[in-house]
């Protein structure tokens, strides 16, 4: 960390206005330009310090009426962890039947976010 300068152009997604925001991070201070509201300013700061996203994916199902189970993270996870989590998920396989809301992985990649199923899948027979 320490002294770093980071500049980023962000499109705000909080409302249909879609403000174009410039964020400059320099020696621990953050300057936000172009945000028309306080929420937008917070969003921009978050986007430059630690952007987070909800991750949705699928994992393989054995003996199910469908071959894939859709899943999601219960919390938003750091954007930089997305591919690490995806890699872990693609290695998994669950056995049908599965109910919606079942915890498949606890705190994936130490994010404090669980992976849960977002639908039920019956077994084939």
């Amino acid at each position: 960390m320490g002294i770093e300068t980071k500049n980023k152009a962000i499109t705000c997604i909080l409302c249909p206005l879609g403000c174009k925001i410039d964020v400059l991070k320099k020696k621990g201070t953050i300057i936000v330009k172009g945000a028309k509201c306080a929420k937008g300013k917070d969003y921009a700061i978050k986007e430059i310090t630690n952007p987070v996203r909800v991750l949705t994916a699928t994992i393989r199902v054995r003996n199910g009426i469908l071959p894939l189970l859709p899943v999601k993270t219960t919390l938003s996870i750091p954007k930089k962890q997305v591919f690490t989590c995806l890699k872990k998920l693609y290695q998994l396989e669950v056995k049908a039947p599965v109910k919606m809301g079942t915890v498949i992985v606890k705190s994936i990649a130490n994010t404090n976010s669980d992976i849960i199923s977002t639908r039920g899948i019956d077994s084939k027979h």
Partner: protein
Amino acid sequence: MYKANVVIIGGGPAGLGAACKAKELGIEKVLILERDRELGGILFQCIHNGFGLQYFNEDLTGPEYATRFIQKAQKLGVESKLNTIVLEINNNKKILAVNSSDGLMEINTETIILAMGCRERTRGAINIPGTRPAGIFTAGTAQRLINMENLLPGKSVVILGSGDIGLIMARRLTWVGAKVKAIVEMLPYPSGLTRNVVQCAEDYDIPLILSHTVTNIYGKKRLTGVTIGKVDEEGNIVRKSEKYIPCDTLLLSVGLIPENELSKNTGIKLDADTNGPFVNQYMQTTIPNIFACGNVTQVYDLVDYVTEAGELAAEGAHLYMKGLTNSKTVLIKKGRNIRQIVPQRISLYERQKPIRFYLRVQYPEEKVKVGIYKEGKEIFSKKQLIVRPSEMIVLEISDEVIRKASETNEVTVKINGYRN
């Protein structure tokens, strides 16, 4: 011979919304006819989040949103027939349908709710020149293959059209290991919601190339590449602007068309701007016992709006069965910068509840007001800092405005600039 009070054609979010509401209103026999092997419609392949923010005030995925309504419908005693295709609607009350267990069946019903959703435009609809190789998919087909059938359509992808499904598939393809080389949009602005432009394209540095389109397709057995070219303001390709992009897959996200083959044979009036039935605020078509809701009436931005439309259709069917008819109709005319609006007419009932209009503009504008005018005089207006074709505008008008509108036979909705 089956009998029902309400038959709903299509078990997606619109049909489910209508079915649940119909049961809640005390309608006895509510039957959904669904073509697929399960209820829920397209939601089960939309595994991403962003559903239900308005209706449930929660951020749900498509399958979660669908499951909530399927479970509610089961609890309320909604009946359904799956794997069932409706062939015809006769005399506005007899439905001819077929499936492999009942065979050919005729269903007699008091009211019908059309909830067939929409279809994707294909390559044929937009006439892209070139060869006819494998590797060209609509974005929704690719979504189903990847999210439900565990099949990857390709590894090196160009997406034509920046609609929401195209954007979401750009991210999804990246997440399953494919390389998305570009999203190409003919218009000078993106067609999808801003949050999708940011979280699906910008997040993964996928170039979104505006004012461009695919001009040629190459490859014999499998797609080998496409050329893209710049589009001028009149929609013509700029000469010598073409550029070749090698790829093995082309996804098309070039618009959705309401699915109205069945509607057409009933003789209900369709609106050329929405491509859907001409409806009142209870989604009543021009045939009094036939209602329509969801993407069959117009393509909505959000599933939440689709659910609401389904509920309104059920309320309309309920009013119709109680014998409450409307006394007068006010037509809604489209004025400056209005591309489409639903409902297209207001029917006046003795007891009136607020009415919501869902409309889209033709082109983006800033600092405007959306107004309703009666004989040139403003009876309602709402300021908007920005309007875009990709973001539907919702106008809710009160009983008082409806009464003012009812003094005449038509009112006009238009976009005007305002000065501060």
